[in-house]
C-alpha cells in the first residue's frame, strides 16, 4: 500500500517531449485513471512509474522512496498489459506463481498464494491450462491474478480492456472495480475510453499533449470542466460545442455564432466576458430538449430545427439536428417516436451552458 507522487516529470523521445513536467499525487488506495487521446503521454507516465521507461526529468516516488534509479523489480509494482502478455509456455498456475518463484519463495507458500489469487479471480478451474486454451476474458483475469499474487504496493493497468469485445469489456470493468474493493491497493489505470475512466475512477487525470488538463472526480470533470478539451472529452455523446463572438445587444452581452444566430450570455457569466471576445459555448445533449416531449427549463432559449437523424436507444433517444450550420445532438428521455425531417422546437437550458475562451481553451 502506498501513495505515488510524480514531481515535475518529463519524458522525451528524441526531440519530442511526450510528457511535460507533470505533477501528480496519487493517494494511498486510490483508483486513479489517466485518460486522454492517443499520444497524450498517459502510457509513458505509467511506464515511468513502472520503471520501464527512463525518467528524463523530475522525481517519481512510491511511498516515500524515490524510484528514479530503481529497476522495475525493485519498485514492487505490478503491471497488467493490454495484450495480457501471459507467458505462453507456462500453465496458468506457473504464470501466477512465476514472480514468487523468482522471489525465491517456498513451493508451499507459492501454491497457497496462487490459489488465493485464483480464488479471488475465479480462475481456479483453469490453473492447469496453457494461456492459448483460454478465452480473452479468462486471459485478462489471469493477467490480473499474476499482478495481485505479488501483493504489490501499486497496480498499474495499461489499457487492459481494449482487446476485449464490448460485452466482455463491461463485465471486466465491473470485475476490476470489485477487485479494487477486495484488495484495496493503489491503482493507476490508463485508458483512452472516457466511459471506463468515469465508471472506474476515484479520481481522473485528463492528459493532452503531455500535460495534465484537469484532475478531479468523475462528476467534477463532468460538471465543471476546466477546459474546452475536457468538456468535449468527458461525457457521451460529446458535448455540443459552438464557436461564437460576444456582441452587445440591447445592453446585454450575447453570443453571435458564425451563422449569425444570437444566444444571450447566461446571467452569471455576463461579467466574465468582454465584447468581441472569441468564445465557444457548449451544452450537453440532455440540456437541449424538444419542447414537445420535455419540460421547458426556467431559463431557456428556443429554436426551431428539423431532425436529421433520430437514434432510439430504448431509455433515451438521440436526435441529431442543426444549430445553424453545425450539427448538434439532443437527448430526450421520453419514448416518443421522432422521424427524420420532423420539425421540432428545441429549448436550450442556458443555466447549463459552458463558456470557453477560444484562444486559451479555458472555462469562463
Amino acid at each position, binding site marked *: 500500500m502506498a501513495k505515488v507522487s510524480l514531481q515535475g516529470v518529463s519524458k522525451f523521445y528524441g526531440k519530442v517531449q511526450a510528457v511535460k513536467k507533470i505533477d501528480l499525487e496519487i493517494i494511498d488506495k486510490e483508483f486513479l485513471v489517466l485518460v486522454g487521446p492517443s499520444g497524450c503521454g498517459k502510457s509513458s507516465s505509467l511506464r515511468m512509474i*513502472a520503471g520501464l521507461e527512463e525518467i528524463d526529468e523530475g522525481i517519481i516516488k512510491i511511498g516515500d522512496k524515490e524510484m528514479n534509479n530503481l*529497476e522495475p523489480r525493485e519498485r514492487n509494482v505490478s*503491471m497488467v498489459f493490454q495484450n495480457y*502478455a501471459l507467458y505462453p509456455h507456462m500453465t496458468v498456475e506457473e504464470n501466477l506463481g512465476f514472480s514468487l518463484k523468482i522471489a525465491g519463495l517456498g513451493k508451499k507458500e507459492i501454491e497457497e498464494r496462487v490459489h488465493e489469487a485464483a480464488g479471488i479471480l475465479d480462475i481456479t478451474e483453469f490453473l492447469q491450462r496453457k494461456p492459448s486454451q483460454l478465452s480473452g476474458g479468462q486471459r485478462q483475469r489471469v493477467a490480473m491474478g*499474476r499482478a495481485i499474487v505479488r501483493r504489490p504496493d501499486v497496480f498499474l493497468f495499461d489499457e487492459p480492456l481494449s482487446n476485449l469485445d464490448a460485452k466482455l469489456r463491461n463485465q471486466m470493468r465491473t470485475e476490476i472495480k470489485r477487485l479494487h474493493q477486495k484488495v484495496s491497493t493503489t491503482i493507476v489505470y490508463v485508458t483512452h475510453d472516457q466511459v471506463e475512466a468515469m465508471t472506474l475512477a476515484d479520481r481522473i487525470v485528463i492528459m493532452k499533449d503531455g500535460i495534465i488538463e484537469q484532475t478531479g472526480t468523475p462528476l467534477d470533470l463532468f460538471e465543471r470542466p476546466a477546459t474546452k478539451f475536457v468538456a468535449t472529452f468527458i461525457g457521451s455523446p460529446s458535448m455540443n460545442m459552438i464557436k461564437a463572438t460576444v456582441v452587445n445587444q440591447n445592453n446585454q452581452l450575447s453570443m453571435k455564432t458564425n451563422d449569425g444566430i444570437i444566444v444571450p450570455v447566461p446571467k452569471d457569466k455576463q461579467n466574465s466576458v468582454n465584447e468581441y471576445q472569441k468564445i465557444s459555448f457548449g451544452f450537453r445533449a440532455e440540456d437541449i430538449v424538444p419542447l414537445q416531449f420535455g419540460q421547458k427549463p426556467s431559463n431557456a432559449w428556443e429554436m426551431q430545427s428539423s431532425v436529421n437523424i433520430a437514434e432510439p436507444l430504448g431509455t433515451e433517444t438521440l436526435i441529431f439536428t442543426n444549430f445553424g450550420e453545425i450539427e448538434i445532438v439532443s437527448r430526450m428521455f421520453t419514448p416518443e417516436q421522432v422521424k427524420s425531417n420532423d420539425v421540432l422546437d428545441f429549448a436550450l437550458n442556458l443555466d447549463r451552458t459552458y463558456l470557453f475562451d477560444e484562444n486559451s481553451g479555458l472555462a469562463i
Partner: protein
Amino acid sequence: MNKRQINNILIWFSAIILIILIMTPGLWVVLTAFRPQVDVMAKPAVWIPRNLNLIQFETMLFGGSEGSMGRSPIPVLSYLRNSLIISFTSTFIAVLVGTIGGYGFARHNFKHKNKYFLLIMLTRTIPGISLSLPIFIIFSKIGLIDTHIGIILVFVALNIPFTIWLTDGFFRQIPRAMSEVAMTDGCTKLQAFWHIELPLSRSGIASAGIFAFLISWNEYALVSNLARSTDSKTLTVGLMDFTAQFTINWPGMCALAVFIIIPALILTFMVQKHLVTGLTFGGVKG
C-alpha cells in the same frame, strides 16, 4: 475430367519429376556404396544392382580384405572425431553469440542499427571459397593451420550472421510486454531473457542450430585448405582419400558419404518439428 483435376494431375506430375531430380544423385550415392567396383564402372551402366555388399564399409573401418581393392583403412574414426568436435563446438559458439546478437538487434535501439545489420548480412555474400586464400595466409602466420580452433573460428564466423538474422526475426515476434511483465514480476533483464524470451524462441534457435551444424558438417572447400592431417581433417575432406593418382575408388567414397549423411539425417529428424515452425515463423522479419 474437369479443369481442377487436370491441374491436380499436372501438379503431382511436376512434383514427382522434381523429387526424382532431387533424389536421384543421393540415391545413386547410397547404391554405389553397396556395389562392387566392377558394377559401378561398367559400361553400359548397370542400372539395377546385381549384388550388394558391405565390403566398402569393412575396408573403410578395418582395412582391406579379400575382394576389396586391398587398401589400407582410412582413419575414418579420426575424421569423425574431428568433424564432431568442429561441428558441435562451432555450432554452439555461433548459436550462443548469434542469439545474443539477434536479441540485441531485435530489442535494442542504437545508432546505425540497420547499417550494422546490413553489414553483417553482407559478409555472407562473399563466396566462401574466395576467403580460403586470405584465411590460409593469416592462419599460417599465427599457426592455426591444421588445428581444430582454426577451423572452428572460420565456421563460427560463417554461421553467426545467419543465426543473428534468424533469431532476430524470432525475438521480434515475442511481444516486448512479455519481458516487461517479467521485469515487473521481479526478474532482472537477464532472468527475463532466460526464463521467458529464450524458451519462447526455442524453435528459432533450434533452426539456427541445425543450419549452422549442417553448414559446418558438410563444408568441404575451406576445410580442405586448412586441414592438413588427421589432426583436423573432417569426414568431407576425408572423401579425397579415395582418390589416387590414376584411380578413384567410387564405391569407397560413396560409402564414406553415406557415413557422413547418417548423423546429419538423424539430427535433422530430431529437430524437424522445430525446423518447420522455425522456417515459417521466424523467417519473416517484422
